[in-house]
Every structure is written in structure tokens, then in C-alpha cells.
């Protein structure tokens, strides 16, 4: 079988963004303090989307990314994008996956309008949003490095 094309970017980014969007919506409803049912629904949606992001990222990282990785690592000036960027991204993601799992369990039993539980929801939503932005930035670093690598290889350097 021929090697897959590089510059892999697939459905996992969409699902991750949807997870962040659901968390943002949950945060908004929580701060408005209007309808607790929607806080819990958005929390469960965030859990679902982040799990879908993991499932859909597996073929990208395990099979497709290898082509881009080889290109990135072949240029000294790009190597950090894999060795720091991708290595951090692929592993930190598991912390986010477990946080989203905890969020789903908590949303199942805990009323967000309780004064002591509101703070917990706030913390989890904010960590998911900020963490998602961080992972997205690392993904952009890796994507740009892959493009530069292919460009160098094509005679652009």
C-alpha cells in the first residue's frame, strides 16, 4: 500500500472545536445562571465531542502523521515542532480526555446552580477551553512546520 499523503488534518480537529464550543456555551449559561438543564446538556456534549475527537485522532496520529513527522524531523530548524509540540499535544490530550470524562460524570449528578458546585463547573469549563486553545496552537505549529518541510523538500529552501 502506498504511503498516505502528508499534511494530515482530519475530523478530530472539528470534534475538538465542538467540545470547546460546547464548553463555552456551558460556561455562558452557567454565568447567566438561567437554565441548569442546559449547563448539564452542554457539559455532556463536551464530553461526547472530546471522546469523538480522541477516537477520530487515533488513525491520524498512528498512521497518517508518520509522513509529516519524517519531513518535520528531517530539518533541524523544524524538529522542535514534533519533539516539543506534537509530543506534548498527543499526551496532554489524555489529561483533557479524562477531565471531560469527569465532567460528564459530574454533570450527570450535580446541579450547577448549587453555590459550591458552580465553582467546579466553572473551573472545568475554563480548563477545557484554555487547554483546547493551547492544543490548537500546538497543532498550528505542527501544521505550519509540516508545510515548511514539504516546501523545503520541493526546492523551496
Amino acid at each position, binding site marked *: 500500500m502506498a504511503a498516505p499523503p502528508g499534511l494530515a488534518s482530519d475530523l478530530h480537529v472539528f470534534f475538538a472545536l465542538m467540545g470547546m464550543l460546547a464548553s463555552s456555551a456551558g460556561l455562558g449559561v452557567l454565568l447567566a445562571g438561567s437554565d441548569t438543564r442546559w449547563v448539564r446538556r452542554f457539559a455532556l456534549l463536551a464530553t461526547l465531542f472530546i471522546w469523538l475527537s480522541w477516537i477520530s485522532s487515533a488513525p491520524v496520529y498512528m498512521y497518517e502523521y508518520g509522513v509529516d513527522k519524517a519531513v518535520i524531523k528531517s530539518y533541524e530548524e523544524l524538529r522542535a515542532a514534533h519533539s516539543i509540540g506534537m509530543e*506534548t499535544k498527543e499526551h496532554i490530550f*489524555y*489529561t483533557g*480526555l*479524562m*477531565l471531560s470524562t469527569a465532567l460528564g460524570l459530574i454533570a450527570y*449528578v450535580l446541579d450547577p446552580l448549587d453555590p*459550591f*458546585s458552580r465553582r467546579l463547573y466553572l473551573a472545568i469549563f475554563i480548563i477545557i477551553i484554555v487547554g483546547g486553545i493551547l492544543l490548537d496552537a500546538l497543532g498550528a505549529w505542527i501544521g505550519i512546520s509540516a508545510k515548511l518541510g514539504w516546501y523545503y523538500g520541493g526546492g523551496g529552501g
Partner: protein
Amino acid sequence: MREKVVYGAGLGFFVSSMVNALLVIAKEYDEGFKEWLKTVFTHHWLGHGILVILTFIVFYLLGYAAYRGGLGVAVGRTYVYVILGSILSLVIIWGFYILHFLGVA
């Protein structure tokens, strides 16, 4: 029941996020362990994830079974676990790869 779920989720998250960070270091220093993950799970990253998820499940169940306090305390502890687990795993994983890249670790 609610307090048990909340406490179990917090404990499961904290321990699994720490195991996540420790597995990163273990894989870099013990090539045999990384190879074992590849052999058993087809890819080290997949095996890493499955071990993290299993850790969450085990410690969720342990926390659920062992917790005897009230809901307010469970939420307070889970809040601390969430903040600490997130910050520590980020610092350990990111810090380790930066030091590793620089040849320090």
C-alpha cells in the same frame, strides 16, 4: 450517591492525569516498556491512552466505594484535584519534553 460519583470522578481524574505524565517519562527512559506497549496495543500512544483510561476507571471506582463524607466536601476536594491535576500534568509533560529536547533530561 451524588457525593460518591463526584469524589470518584475527581480522584479518578487526578490519579489518571498523574499516571499520564509518569507514562510519558517512563516511555522515554525505558525503551522496553515502549516496545511492550507497541506489541500489546499496536501503537505506544494507544496503549498509553488505554492505561490512562483504565487508571481513571479503577480510581473512580475506588473513590466511589471509599468516600464517606458529604457532597460539599466531595465537590471541594474534586475542585482541588481538577486544578492540581491539570496544572501538574501540563507542567510535567511540557517541561519534560522541553528539557528532553534541550538534552537536559
